[in-house]
């Protein structure tokens, strides 16, 4: 009886998280590697982020924002948002003692994440073979622009460049203007696929005890989001062109100016029923029977006029008013939300998406929760990103010693 109660109260205290007991060493910098470790840390993994004082994570050094625009290794927002709930250590991989220490950490780990240029870890003395020697069950996850093999394997690059090579840039913008850049867009495609790949490898190891090496090319991950355009070209010999907000069979389908400074709403109408509902919301029953707008082909043909009529209405109201009014009447509408809007979004608040954290140098800041809620193994965000070298003592003395003890 006593035994059962103990087990029950333990269960009530903390639900087991998905990656509980999993230890991750991250020899990775900037976004595409560290954000994978962040997802795992949010779900219970013990994640150690490795840098060195000689070469701190690029997100600490070369990328604003810094808190209050004051530069500092521990003041970088991009580093903070990719590394919450982790432990931070410094190892000089150029020194022999550093390599030995790294191998000790790898021995302790279940998963290693790295995003150097291919071949670098081997040159440093911590290649996959060395890792397997100290830890035969290790899962090594390598991610880079082009992959570990092939004629362009060694070519370095950042997400903003690769997003263009993947085709995203070309399809974004207006046909009579230059394409628009999406920023380092593809980085987080690789993050999503990266978590999927590592989870699959953990499942494989659970079943067989076998580790493995994963080679994720961010380019190939990005291509997954382009498949319809690839099929369009290979079967219909047509390149998908950028076309503003136009949609081949929906009208109106655009962003419309609203009351306020650079405020916009999005309205997408796919059928006659939605068009009727929109006209009623606009108080423009006259448009329902207007032959220029009566059918989908007619609205497509007179799309500029449709947009003008809609703008007459939207420009008098706030984006929030339009969003709610249309949604309540069955029209698919939204606000073109800015970052300020996102932090005030009641739906995201309801989901606990922005997790508050207190960082010793930045102060109050927020981490992003996962885009899904797991009913029995919820995520937990309770520690800010580490200061550089913050957990050297804890990790090298306590964690590694505890790991050795558990093994013996």
């Amino acid at each position, binding site marked *: 009886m006593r035994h059962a109660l103990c087990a029950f109260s333990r269960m009530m205290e903390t639900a087991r998280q998905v990656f509980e007991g999993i230890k991750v060493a991250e020899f990775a910098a900037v976004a595409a590697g560290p954000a994978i470790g962040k997802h795992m840390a949010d779900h219970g993994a013990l994640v150690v982020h490795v840098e060195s004082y000689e070469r701190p994570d690029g997100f600490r050094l070369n990328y604003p924002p810094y808190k209050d625009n004051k530069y500092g290794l521990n003041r970088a927002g991009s580093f903070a948002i990719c590394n919450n709930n982790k432990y931070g250590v410094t190892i000089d991989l150029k020194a022999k003692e550093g390599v030995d220490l790294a191998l000790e950490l790898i021995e302790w780990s279940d998963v290693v994440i790295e995003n150097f240029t291919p071949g670098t870890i081997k040159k440093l003395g911590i290649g996959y073979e060395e890792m397997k020697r100290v830890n035969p069950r290790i899962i090594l996850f390598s991610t880079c622009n082009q992959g570990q093999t092939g004629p362009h394997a060694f070519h370095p690059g950042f997400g903003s460049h690769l997003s263009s090579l993947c085709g995203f840039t070309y399809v974004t913008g207006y046909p009579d203007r230059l394409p628009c850049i999406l920023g380092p867009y593809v980085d987080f495609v690789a993050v999503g696929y990266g978590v999927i790949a590592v989870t699959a490898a953990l499942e494989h190891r659970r079943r067989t005890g076998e580790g493995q090496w994963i080679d994720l090319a961010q380019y190939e991950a990005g291509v997954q989001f382009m498949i319809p355009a690839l099929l369009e070209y290979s079967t219909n010999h047509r390149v998908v062109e950028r076309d503003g907000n136009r949609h081949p069979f929906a009208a109106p389908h655009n962003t419309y100016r609203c009351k306020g400074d650079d405020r916009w709403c999005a309205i997408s109408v796919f059928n006659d029923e939605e068009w009727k509902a929109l006209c009623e919301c606009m108080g423009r029953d006259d448009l329902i029977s207007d032959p220029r707008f009566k059918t989908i082909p007619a609205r497509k043909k007179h799309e500029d006029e449709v947009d003008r009529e809609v703008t007459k209405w939207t420009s008098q109201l706030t984006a929030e008013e339009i969003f709610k009014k249309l949604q309540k009447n069955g029209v698919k509408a939204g606000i073109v939300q800015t970052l300020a809007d996102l932090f005030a979004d009641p*739906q995201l608040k309801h989901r606990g998406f*922005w997790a508050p954290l207190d960082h010793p140098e930045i102060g109050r800041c927020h981490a992003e929760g996962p885009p899904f809620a797991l009913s029995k193994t919820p995520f937990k965000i309770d520690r800010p990103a580490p200061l550089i070298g913050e957990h050297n003592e804890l990790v090298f003395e306590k964690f590694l010693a505890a790991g050795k003890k558990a093994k013996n």
Partner: protein
Amino acid sequence: MEEKVKLLKDCRVLDFTNETAFLCGKILGDLGADVVKVEKPGGDESRNLGSFFQDTPHPEKNLYWFSYNHNKRGITLNIETETGREILRKLVENTDIVLETFAPGYLEKLGLGYAALSEINPKLVMTSVTPFGQSGPYKDYKGSDLVLTAMSGLMSSLGDPDKPPVRPTLPQSYMWIGMHAAMGTLMPYYHRGMTGEGQHVDVSGQAGVIWALNHSPSFYDLNKEVPRREGSFITGRSITGAIFRAVYPCKDGYVTYVIYGGPAGKRTNRRLVEWMDSKGMAPDDLKNKDWDQFDIATVTQEEVDRIEDACMKFFRTVTKKEFFEHVLENDMLGYPVATAKEILEDEQLRARGLWREVEHEELGTKITYPAFFTVFSSIACDSWRRAPLIGEHNREIYGEIGLDDSDILRLKRANVI
């Protein structure tokens, strides 16, 4: 070489998703899961979206359907009939994962919500994907690609400053949602292996697309900065507020080149000037510039404009191919702005064996697909089968629960399958 393991081959997935989350089941299918796409009798409406094979509008020729229902089998089932519901309950006994995109509350009303299904099969992992989530003030609101690109914040930084904000013309939000749904499904599936426990996953489409914003939320979070759309320019690299051009017209299209700091950026800038100089196009101030002292965070807009002006003139004289070859050979940062054509022709992707010709026997042709999303040393990630025809595997799947051909005929006539 050892044969790779089809990791999820014993994992049965029932996939009730619409176009917003097709990719979720496809990813599980890539890893070998037996994914069964369930459509309404006669086929889903989503077979009419986007383009068609040879521009022939037909539910069996839909390219979007092909793209993201690849690696699935297919059945038809009408769960709005009692017989249909009974069949589903029977199927769930041997199902590991259910994926669905119905409006919140719809399945509960039919008696098929997570609570009911997990009673039949306690180990079930059930993933529910909706535009905004299962609960909360927006739970009943409808989404479209445009709406979710707007509500996620992605759109506020896309487009020219003098024009309305834009979405990528090739819809992207459903890819972000499907990928994150796959992540949110595989994680509890792994947990189930560890503990035997199933659970319910509530995916928010809006939140799924927010992850496309990268690190940019920190601009507002730390300094209350709200980035605006700057067309082909990158913002947020400098504390002076300078913006940097990221798309240049070239001889036959566009290239992406960005003036960067850091070791790779400085190397790239130096080598670009050498390349310009070899063509007699490098201005003196660029030739004499000490790139080691160049600091991207504190550079002024005026200086950036001067450098970019020279780049603009130079890139107009090179082709995409020349640019690509030059950056590859010289270890510089930059890529051409590729179209689908160039992706399919890319020598790296070919050398990696990414492409797979897949037989579409009913169309009398083969279509090229990417075969994998990553390369594992021990797990097979591959292209196994083309997307299903309407009800293509009814006999196979319904045979498993003891229905014979005459039952199937009866169910078909009653509009149950």
